[in-house]
């Protein structure tokens, strides 16, 4: 599903974020990227989602060598990857339905199918009753669950999450972890960057620990 082979990433300011990073993630796995701030977790996610290209090495995601994906093909590539962000990235002026429907709308999914999938995704995160609410009317935990619903609504093969519990209290964090576990059990592949070691250990999932841009374990 994902293969990093001796990947280097150096940013234009000269900072080397990743240095000879190699790992494989198989289909249906839930993997945590762990490490301190600046360890390179976000850079790995950015390379997976084609927000960045590697300076050197091979990044293969869903069978695509990301170095070879042309700029015009990036949107269709991203439609195969669901993304969850620490700050939710919801559109404040749009309803929950519109927010969750966005990836389906950009993929030109028929209206009836969009409606069906949005409801299914909201049902999965337990927020179907808030379908007409605006994000501002929801709690932080609910907003994060809407962010997850948006990521899973198009039924992507891969879900990546960058510090999805970073702004949540332990109770809400466990709820979100439970949600991710259910998605894994349903067959999704998840790559989650987190520095919340307690939560990561509680999940029992495989960890890729990064430090100074290198894979430590």
């Amino acid at each position, binding site marked *: 599903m994902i293969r990093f082979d001796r990947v280097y990433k150096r940013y234009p300011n000269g900072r080397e974020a990743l240095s000879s990073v190699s790992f494989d993630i198989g289909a249906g796995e839930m993997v945590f990227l762990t490490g301190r701030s600046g360890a390179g977790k*976000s850079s790995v*996610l*950015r390379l997976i*989602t084609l*927000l960045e290209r590697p300076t050197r090495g091979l990044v293969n995601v869903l069978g695509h060598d990301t170095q070879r994906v042309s700029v*015009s093909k990036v*949107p*269709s*590539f*991203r*439609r195969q990857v669901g*993304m969850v*962000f620490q700050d939710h*990235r919801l*559109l404040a002026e749009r309803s929950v339905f519109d927010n969750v429907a*966005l*990836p389906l*709308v*950009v*993929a*030109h999914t*028929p209206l009836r199918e969009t409606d069906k999938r949005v409801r299914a995704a909201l049902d999965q995160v337990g927020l179907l009753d808030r379908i007409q609410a605006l994000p501002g009317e929801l709690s932080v935990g609910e907003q994060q669950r809407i962010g997850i619903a*948006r990521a899973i609504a198009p039924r992507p093969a891969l879900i990546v999450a*960058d510090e999805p519990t970073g702004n949540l209290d332990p109770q809400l964090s466990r709820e979100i972890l439970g949600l991710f576990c259910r998605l894994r059990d349903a067959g999704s592949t998840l790559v989650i960057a987190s520095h919340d070691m307690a939560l990561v250990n509680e999940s029992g999932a495989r960890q890729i620990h990064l430090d100074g841009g290198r894979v430590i374990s």
Partner: protein
Amino acid sequence: MIGWLSRHLQALVFALGRLARAPVATLFTAVVIAIALALPAGFLLLTHSVRDVAGNATTVDLTVYFKREVPLESVQQLAAHLRQRNGIESVAVITADDALALMRKDSSLAEALGALPDNPLPHALSIHPAADASSSTSLGALRQYLTAWPEVELVQLDSDWVRRLDAILLLMQRITLGIGTLLGFGVLAVIGNTIRLEINGRRQEIEITQLVGGSAAFVRRPFLYTGALYGLLGSLLAAGIVHTAVALVAGPVDQLARSYGSQFALQPLGGQGLGLMLAVGALLGLAGAWLAAARHISRLQPRA
């Protein structure tokens, strides 16, 4: 096809919604565009009106004035002779009495003419050349031929004023083109800047859309519709301004034209003119939005 239409309809509805949610800002932008479009449109309408009047009178005729002592019979004989000549479409005899009567009727000199003891005007011929003999060379040759007649006092080729009118019309067209081009760029700039501000205001939305797989076309489309709608609304207002202006000045212009014996009248915009204005407005709006969208959206890089 249905999917394509649905996507465009969605973008159109979205753009309409954005404009409707900020009616005052939309109106101000449309008014600026309207003023920029109304000026060249008004000039163009004026040029067309003048050309239409001139078009009825641009046939170049020759007028032959005979010496006063030449009798009418001789003039009629010469007219009959001319009618046999190639390159002449018609020859009209204008007797001295007819000319005087016409002058009394149409001229402000009627009183002065009435005070004269006898008719000072000569007999004349009005010669209308055939279309295929209206070149300056042919007319020059005909003029030379007529001047050689001993009975003829003067041959007047009525082309000088036509040339002057053509020059004035050409000047008006060039001025209209110049103003139109300048103001067209102005409209592009106004719409481009408005769209740029919209893009900046919706930066987060654009970034999120790109993150979830929105293509460049998908992101750009609502802005293009917004630009086209601004142009359309602006040109509709411009048409209203031109129509109102024509309606306001048509009466006085008509009075002025009549006092000079002219049939000049300002023409209304008409359906074709309105259609052209709307098309130009929409295209300018689309072009301005495209330029802004291509420039500013490509600079927005989504961040995870």
